[in-house]
């Protein structure tokens, strides 16, 4: 048996693969089932959003931002509006800020619920996927009630929000919060202590904090490695400094911790939404902004804490109606960069678990 000839073989995982969450292609070099090299190949979803934005007015850019990261389109709306407001020096009314925070946090919950479902599905449990989407539906209904859209909201505009919430929003929202709180107990009961879930996730894909920092990883993935870094606290935007919430962290940085951390974050976000609903003031929802406003020449880098890490946009204005340059930055971009470092020397099945736990979403990477 000593002179048995073995060969490495290369597998293209994707672009059409059920668990690459879009159209990512990973070129895997395998030794048996063990991965010895991963090379991510991106760009299959490149829509040249940055180039399109250069050709539109600031107000017209916001629907484009919806497509940048469609799972949490509210964050992208907010991001661009915030950057444009900083550039032009626009003051946002109080009520609009509260509505923005409510929507941002609801969208974060919706995104984490998708994460819960998709991760479980990638590890082979098909049922949690439906459970996650069922509760997400409650949130999506709230969005639909508010702005008429279910995925690409175009709700947060430069200077405020596009329309006020209807009267039945608040009771429905409180009911949804109550239901999600109850269902979270079910979720944890279904997977947290499941022995198969534990052996598939514990100690898999450990991301050391130094590696995460070197590769600019942020958000839940980094917090699961023990780095307490959240832009909502460290570089507060909007009115996040008014709310009382915790930044959960975990120590081990493996897939299981990333999963638990996101469940913790859902609970914190629910608290924020409740506090914002309690304190919601009356008043205007939008500052007076001309649709073709011209910000003075200058540049700004604005960033928000998204469910996948730092979401940032760099805008440079030359004083015209259209931005000179819009550069978007998504958390997944860095998380995909770090994947080859934490995914080698594990099995194909582990790679799927790691990929799912990083919660990479491809429109954010390819833009």
């Amino acid at each position: 048996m000593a002179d048995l000839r073995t060969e490495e073989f290369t597998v293209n995982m994707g672009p059409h693969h059920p668990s690459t969450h879009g159209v990512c292609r990973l070129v895997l070099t395998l030794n048996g089932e063990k991965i010895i090299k991963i090379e991510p190949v991106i760009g299959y979803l490149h829509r040249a959003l940055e180039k399109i934005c250069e050709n539109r007015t600031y107000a017209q850019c916001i629907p484009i931002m919806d497509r940048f990261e469609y799972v949490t389109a509210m964050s992208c709306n907010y991001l661009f509006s915030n950057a444009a407001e900083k550039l032009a020096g626009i003051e946002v009314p109080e009520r609009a800020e509260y509505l923005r925070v409510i929507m941002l946090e609801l969208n974060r919950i919706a995104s984490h619920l998708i994460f819960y479902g998709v991760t479980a599905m990638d590890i082979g449990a098909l049922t949690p996927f439906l459970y996650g989407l069922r509760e997400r539906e409650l949130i999506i209904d709230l969005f639909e009630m508010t702005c008429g859209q279910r995925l690409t909201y175009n709700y947060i505009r430069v200077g405020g929000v596009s329309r006020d919430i209807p009267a039945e929003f608040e009771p429905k929202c409180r009911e949804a919060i109550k239901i999600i709180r109850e269902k979270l107990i079910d979720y944890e009961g279904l997977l947290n202590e499941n022995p198969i879930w534990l052996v598939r996730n514990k100690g898999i894909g450990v991301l050391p904090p130094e590696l995460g920092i070197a590769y600019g990883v942020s958000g839940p993935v980094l917090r699961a490695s023990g780095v307490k870094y959240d832009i909502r606290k460290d570089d507060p935007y909007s009115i996040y400094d008014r709310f009382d919430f915790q930044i959960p962290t975990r120590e081990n940085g493996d897939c299981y911790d990333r999963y638990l951390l996101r469940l913790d974050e859902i609970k914190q976000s629910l608290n924020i939404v409740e506090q914002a609903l309690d304190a919601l003031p009356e008043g205007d929802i939008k500052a007076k902004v001309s649709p073709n406003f011209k910000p003075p020449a200058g540049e700004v880098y604005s960033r928000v804490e998204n469910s996948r890490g730092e979401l940032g946009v760099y805008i440079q204005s030359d004083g015209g109606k259209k931005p000179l340059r819009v550069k978007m930055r998504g958390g997944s971009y860095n998380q995909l960069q770090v994947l080859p470092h934490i995914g080698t020397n594990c099995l194909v099945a582990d790679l799927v678990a790691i990929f799912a736990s990083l919660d990479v979403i491809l429109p954010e990477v390819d833009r």
Partner: protein
Amino acid sequence: MSYPLAFGELHGLFGWLYELLESTGLPQPWLDVVRYAMLGAMVFGVLSLLALFLVWWERKIAAHIQQRFGPMRHGWHGWYQTVVDAVKLLTKEDILVDTRDKFVFFWAPVICFVAAFLAYVSIPFGEGLIVSDLNIGILYVIAITTFTILSLLMAGWGSNNKYALLGGIRSAAQVISYEIPMVASILVVVLFVGSLSMVDIVNSQSGWITNWFVFRLPFGPIAFLTYIVAATAEANRTPFDIPEAEQELVAGYNIEYSGMKFAMFFLAEFVNGFTVSAIAVTLFFGGWHGPFLPSWVWFLLKTFAVVFLLMMFRWTYPRLRVDQLMEFAWKFMVPVTFANLILAAWMKYAGWYW
């Protein structure tokens, strides 16, 4: 004269066919050939219907676990949905890969399908309702169901696809590993009955429910539990469905198959699920025995109960990783089943059982 086949309680329904055959005056060997062909067609027909029903049933169970409705359009709660699906698959274009190994690629689904059905030669559906009561019945069933591995390997190799190859190799490793604990669990039963014949095994469990093998303490329940775990792995169902592992290997060995060839794999999978459940019922749950109702109804009820258990596994658990799966087989299942077998043998020898 003794018929080579019997319908048991269903003799009233089908007995006239025999008499019709007798009246043709064919010589005896020819009569036997026609009879076996007839019976084969019957088993095939019944099992195909069962498989179609199981597909629908599984979809409904999955849907209700996941708080959906599942198929609702075709008939009452979509009862003929799978028939429509099967017709669709039959009429679908058969997409073939150019680089396939033609011979292997073609025969893989056929072997899978045929092997799945051949097992039913010696599974008793009811009292006297068995195609052939082989004296090595259970051995025959185990041997024939193992053919499935061959077909999966062939499918994996013949597709000339890396994912399919990984799936085929995984399935071979898995099924061979789990064959050992499965046979060791079955041997416990065989040891006590003293016969390999399926009918003898069932008859030894007649009478009260306590005669069922699963209630023979302490080794009966252990043997059943180890059997059902190994059988889940044999039938390639979650949490042991790594040969298919949709999220890792896309669809494993059947990635390149489409149309009717895919349908053959698909139906064979459900027939296999039914087979392992039928063996479980025969070995551990008293086979067709039961009061009031006809024997074949009891058999089907019990088998469906076991199938339901397998389906609950599938829609609740995540999937194991391939090395964890093998570890579980060799480091846990094999020692436990062998210890159980030794315990049972010792108790049989000492006469400490009832």
